[in-house]
């Protein structure tokens, strides 16, 4: 392999996603602590980070598919008629033969809570999108941070409501396949929302410090991709849980 010539620079240490937008060849960012610290173009960083995000979303999508697979597999198999709880009778006293109680008939979860959570995630994604638009048109840090703050608020509401839903479910984890999978959906949604809220808080704080402008709007776009994905996956889970009891 022949190699020749050269110029200095391109990617090197510190060329990662977290922090320090737009140094070096990229557009300058007011308030950045390390101007000139890196030598990677904004385009290259954006390209890398977008690809990383799409790959991670791809992996997460596979996880979502496996969640849905679990739902439909257990629902279709309905092992021992216990998908959504057994009908207890003298012949079936709802014990496992060792005297331990097993599931009794259960009620379907009220879809209202899940729908509220889904709406919150959609609104959070929408406000991240608005923050991105504000940054893109250089609308000022107040505008960007307001949108980011509202998005973060919706993320917190979604998390709070998800925790609340755990308290008001008409069943517990031990009540058969439906109950187990439903709570698995909820747990998965909660974990994703916590991650999104971490990023959302970062977006809000950084926007408040004026880190996002017409030169760096594409960094908000990355967060928007993730927020939209979370909203989409939540809507899918909510729909399946509501429609395929």
């Amino acid at each position, binding site marked *: 392999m022949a190699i*020749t010539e050269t110029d200095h620079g*391109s990617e090197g*240490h510190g060329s990662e996603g977290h922090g320090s937008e737009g140094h070096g060849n990229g557009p300058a960012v007011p308030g950045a602590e*390390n101007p000139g*610290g890196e030598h990677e173009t904004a385009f290259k960083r954006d390209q890398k980070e977008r690809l*990383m995000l799409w790959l991670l979303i*791809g992996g997460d999508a596979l996880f979502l598919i496996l969640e849905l697979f679990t739902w439909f597999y257990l629902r279709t*198999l309905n092992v021992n008629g216990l998908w959504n709880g057994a009908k207890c009778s003298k012949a079936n006293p709802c014990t496992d033969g060792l005297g331990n109680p097993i599931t009794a008939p259960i009620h379907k979860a009220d879809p209202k809570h899940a729908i509220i959570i889904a709406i919150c995630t959609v609104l959070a994604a929408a406000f991240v999108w608005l923050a991105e638009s504000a940054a893109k048109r250089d609308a000022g840090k107040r505008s960007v941070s307001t949108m980011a703050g509202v998005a973060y608020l919706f993320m917190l509401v979604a998390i709070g409501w998800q925790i609340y839903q755990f308290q008001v479910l008409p069943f517990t984890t031990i009540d058969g396949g439906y109950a187990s999978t439903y709570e698995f959906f909820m747990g998965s949604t909660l974990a994703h929302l916590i991650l999104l809220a*971490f990023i959302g808080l970062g977006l809000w704080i950084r926007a408040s410090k004026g880190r996002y402008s017409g030169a760096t709007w594409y960094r908000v776009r990355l967060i928007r991709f993730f927020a939209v994905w979370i909203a989409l996956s939540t809507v899918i889970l909510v729909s399946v849980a509501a429609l395929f009891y």
Partner: protein
Amino acid sequence: MTTAVAPPLLEDTQLGPKAGGFYRHQNIWTGLGFGIFLGFIGWLVSHALLQGSNWGTDMVVTCTMVGWVLGFNIGMGTFNAPIRWMLGHDQTHEDELYAAGVGQGSSRYLKFCTDHKVVGTQYLILVLVLFGVGGTLAMMIRTQLITPHSSFLDPQTYNSVVTIHGMVMIIATIIMVSGPFANFIMPIMIGAKDMAFPRLNAMSFWVVVSAVPCLLSTFFLGGVNAGWTTYAPLSVQAPAAMDAFAITIIVFVVSVTIAGVNTIVTVVTMRAKGMTMGRLPIFTWGAVIGGALGLYAMPAFLAVMTMMITDRVTGTSFFVPEVGGSQWLYENIFWIMGHPEVYVILLPPVAAVLEIAGTFARKPVFGYKVAVAGFVAIASLSIMVWAHHMFTTGWAPNLAAPFMLTTELISIPTGIIFLCTIGTLWKGSIWTRLPMWFIYLFIWNFIIGGVTGIYLSDVPADQFFHGDMFVTAHFHYTLLGGAMIGATAAVCYWFPKISGRMLNERIGKVAFWMIAIGIQVTYFGQFWEGFQGMARRIAYYNPHYQAANDMSTAGAYLLMSGWLVFLYMLIHGWRRGKIAPANPWHAKTLEWKVPTPVPLENFLVDPVVTSDPYTYGEGVPDGQEVPEFAPAAEPELVPAGSGPPEPGDVGGAS
């Protein structure tokens, strides 16, 4: 002619007293301290709140392990950068240099270091440690089987040893090439200054380190006696050690996912000018496709282990038929992960074998594009074969034939890659150095592993062999004899670049013959056991099987001794080996064009690639031998078109 003037080395930068921030105070000791502290807090809180509830013990173990993992990584500095990002405090350039290990000497190997070469070396040491643990457990298994009714281990402990041996080896083999070589070597191979995401790179390493104590703690928590596949409902009923096992896997999945993404992004976006996809060294293809396959497989591992741990900790009923679950659900999801995972292990070492074969045969990789297509075909087919592990479970008998077909189909691209390896060596001017010995051994072992795999893909044959020692012998031939020997060749090949020293090949050949013979004796013994019908994972056996077991055990002792000699060779080489020239094998890929030790950002000047990676012998008239190469010299980097061509180099702009 003007030679490009190299800038001052980054590693010579004088950093200020505050460079690095928190990183200055964090290392493996703070990691251990925080890990133990948060693990204790997890234990204390969960013990106080949950002990006595239905799933108290399981919850306590889970909380303790989660506390340990979080604490260790907080102490190491894994989360520093994300938290600083969130707070809007970006790292300065000096912070980045400090994190890359500037001015820290060898202590950087015990810290969260973002230099890909440090991470690669850390991975190499971790892999050796894991193989040491897994190998010791393997010897305990074989020692137990010396006699039909040995009292060396009780059955419960024996089952735990078998399980943890399996999982330690699976973890070690998944990272044995993608860890050290995809980190240390691959970025240089493609002309990059580092991985695409240096912090994620370091994170992937320290996260997997935090998983290892969880796995080893299982011995003190009652043991995991369900086999490495931890089939439900056995795993759901297992002692609390199963919770630590599941946490191990979940943490490991995070690490492998991050590493896979990083590898792919690095290759797609960080290649040097002129390094087109068609010019990528074949090893890079193996690493990328292996990483992509890992991204497919790991979510399934995460899903199945999460469901299993919730079955145990919160009483969900995914896998327990008595309460509406299904063990087939476990088996399906597990093998949706499990079979691609075999190729996550195999593809990078096989690609390394092709890479090394080209160098030592002084020939281009035979059928380069076909081999790449073969990797893609294997990866694609591997996601459609999972149910061949379930032929005897009673699940969907009508699907047995299609799954048999897809499994047998996978032997076609595998065979093609095999032919590419043979074709690369065919009529080459083979330079038989230590890496080449292991290539020969790889070829032999991989044939046996591959052919016996075809038998097992056949439904009637599988009905007979399933669950017996034939299967054990088959996958050890494939994973140890194939993948691990390929990785061993890679260690011998790239050791001079990593350590800056040469290995003692005389010691290496002693190790080679012990390993080569040891493998044949050990696993032919196990084929024999399998043909006789001996089941695997049993502590006691019928005396009828003793001769075959004695053969296998004797082979195992020889094999382990061979690995110890090999380890001695590595340590000896690292400490007292001859200083390695920059390019001891006269290879053509970029990692051999940089000085040894490799500078912080690899290239003093950015390379521009102007030819294919394997231009050995080009320009040599027919019938003449490839000329001997002069002793290796530092490559000269000169402006395009003005320098003398290297032997065999083809000029021309990309």
